[in-house]
């Protein structure tokens, strides 16, 4: 049994909140540059150039890439041989978010009540997910999620008879409906299977996976490639001004499901797809 003080988790969450908001992951930068090289539409080239210039400014001056510094989605993979000491884990994570959003000059975008509103003033609470895994380490991932794209996400409980075609049509329909709103070029996270709630979580996790990676099952790996190609034939383009580059990546995550169902969730992200991890 390894003891880890939750104050260490606070420190890492604080650091990751700041770094994730200032520095775009290399896989996302690479995908944007590759798309710029393949883009043949004039106005789209101009937009992609400005998007590249923007993340370079954020990198060199350590400022937020986007003003929507998001809700802090925090994923903890906790080794089953770890004993967390020194306080309440959720409070420790929130304290990390609180400090990170203050010290990093990040925007506080969380309201304390969904209907009656009212800003909490410190971007807490975090959206915290914990998972118990083998081992004696804790892996912490922070993915700040903006809501321009979150608002364009969708979930549907399909009948199994809808089949693969139903999923394909739903992905295209969701991206077309999103259009210019989620700041394309987008990253599309697809979760298929599980239950209603698990499908949504899978879609979110799909956005945390590097976009140059593939689903381990060739059936879904091929589907990722096929759907990204289809999305990039829609013509929406960067910012919706027209062009080839509507999405820079599409990841699918799957789980077994019930004989009566085929849940599918689609979580849309923008070109500022942020996530950063560290292992304690």
């Amino acid at each position: 049994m390894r003891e880890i003080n939750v104050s260490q988790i606070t420190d890492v969450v604080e650091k990751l909140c700041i770094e994730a908001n200032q520095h775009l992951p290399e896989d996302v930068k690479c995908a944007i540059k590759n798309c710029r090289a393949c883009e043949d539409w004039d106005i789209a080239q101009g937009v992609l150039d400005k998007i590249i210039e923007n993340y370079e400014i954020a990198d060199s001056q350590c400022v937020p890439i986007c003003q929507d510094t998001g809700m802090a989605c925090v994923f903890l993979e906790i080794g089953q041989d770890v004993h967390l000491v020194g306080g309440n884990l959720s409070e420790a994570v929130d304290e990390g978010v609180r400090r990170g959003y203050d010290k990093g000059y990040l925007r506080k975008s969380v309201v304390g009540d969904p209907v009656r509103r009212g800003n909490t003033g410190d971007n807490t609470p975090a959206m915290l997910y914990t998972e118990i895994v083998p081992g004696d380490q804790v892996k912490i991932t922070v993915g700040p999620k903006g809501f321009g794209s979150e608002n364009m996400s969708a979930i549907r409980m399909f009948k199994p008879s809808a089949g693969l075609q139903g999923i394909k049509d739903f992905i295209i329909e969701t991206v077309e409906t999103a259009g210019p709103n989620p700041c394309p070029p987008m990253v599309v996270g697809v979760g298929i299977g599980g239950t209603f709630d698990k499908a949504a979580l899978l879609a979110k996790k799909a956005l945390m996976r590097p976009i140059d990676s593939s689903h381990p099952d060739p059936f879904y790996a091929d589907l990722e490639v096929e759907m990204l190609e289809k999305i990039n034939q829609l013509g929406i383009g960067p910012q919706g001004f027209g062009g080839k580059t509507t999405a820079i990546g599409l990841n699918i995550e799957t789980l077994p499901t019930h004989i009566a169902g085929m849940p599918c969730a689609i979580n849309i992200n923008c070109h500022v797809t942020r996530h950063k991890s560290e292992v304690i």
Partner: protein
Amino acid sequence: MEKHITLPLTEELAKTLKAGDSVYVTGTIYTSRDAGHKRMCEALARGEELPFDPTDATIYYVGPTPAKPGQVIGSAGPTTSGRMDAYAPTMMSVGARGMIGKGARLPEVIDAMKKYSGVYFGAIGGAGALLAKCIKSAELIAYEDLGAEALRKLYVEDMPLVVIIDSEGNNLYEEGKAAYLASKK
């Protein structure tokens, strides 16, 4: 077409701008999002004056990050304009002609734009660090309690924008996509 314009956005100037134009904007603009628009429209309904003169004004839909020491403003890219659709016709009816944001607008907003010669500009969503460079001064003028959503007066120089919907209702979101797809046939 590339154009350099100086605000205020008079009716005459608005009518020269066409959907798809790349426009570098210099002058004074005001920031507001959902909560600020709600308050302004409630103030107008009570017969009160707005915190700024709306005549020929341009409103930027933005909630910036806090400024670091030495910065004029933090990162400041556009938010989704559709959330202001409920308020935009009212704002145009009192003279606020320009809107800067991103994303689709409702038909009733486009109708109001045709009626009042409004222009909807797009700034690049997600390019907050780049857009902040064009903002030369920022002053909080009302609704401080709204934090990032407070009403600010900005002076911008050569802010890179694209006309998405012009005063005749032409829409780049429809025309740009259609032109690109036609080029692939």
